[in-house]
């Protein structure tokens, strides 16, 4: 899967979980995104895992806190 396709798919999932539109180049950071609470975070992480058929480590589950970081990690998993 190409980077752009992963980026778009991640944005669709984040948009769905946070229930708001996300621009193609917009960076969303957990600390500054009002709706990215710890409940939504869990929902988001497991939705990403299901979509890409991957499994984040415990550290990633807790620590992935921005769209760009999520896309980077997903790319690593898909390439391995």
């Amino acid at each position, binding site marked *: 899967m190409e980077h752009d396709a992963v980026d778009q798919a991640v944005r669709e999932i984040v948009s769905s979980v946070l229930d708001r539109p996300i621009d193609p180049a917009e960076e969303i950071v*957990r*600390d500054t995104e*009002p*709706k*990215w*609470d*710890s*409940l*939504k975070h*869990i*929902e988001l992480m*497991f939705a990403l895992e299901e979509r890409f058929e991957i499994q984040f480590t*415990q*550290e990633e*589950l*807790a*620590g992935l806190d921005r769209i760009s970081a999520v896309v980077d990690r997903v790319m690593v998993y898909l390439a391995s």
Partner: protein
Amino acid sequence: MRHDIRLDGYAFALRPIERSDAALIVGLRSDPVRARYLHQIDLSIAAQEAYLDRYYGRPGDYYFVVENRATHTPEGLIGVYDIVPGPPSTAEWGRWIIQPGSLAGVESALLIYRVAFGLLGLDEVYARTIVENTAVVSFHDSSGLERRGVLKGHVRIGDQQFDCVEHVLTRSRWPEVEANLARRSELIGRRLGRGAIR
């Protein structure tokens, strides 16, 4: 107050806070990001031991350490307090602080509600969150709590006064919220190897 409530969840547990946890309080509340929306406290172990001594003598106040069940490592603090017998019996929950990188947030909320409704038999619990603390305000919204209103200038931190959003959960709404929180907690529990406990 001194209590002996211990409650296990999927991956995390609540246990009574001990005097020896004073250093834990200081450690967690020394994090400027995590503690920025909590009342300022004296960040010395002696001061927190003195605080806990006063807490032990205060009725209607249940303060807990959030512990990882697998490692028995403390990962946070939470409490339910200011209990009014009623009817309806009510209490506030808060003093909620979870260490960075921990996944204990959702389940610690689930467990404090189980203490409030299941063990203490309360009719209603509420949480007051500084408006600017958007992640926690959103957490209560996402959990399914109702917003009761905004308390103007309810909290003073340093020389600043803050408005608070008051969320409320009643006994009648609790089963729905419990299901919501339990579903996520179980997912985390499974991932941390503790999914089959309950």
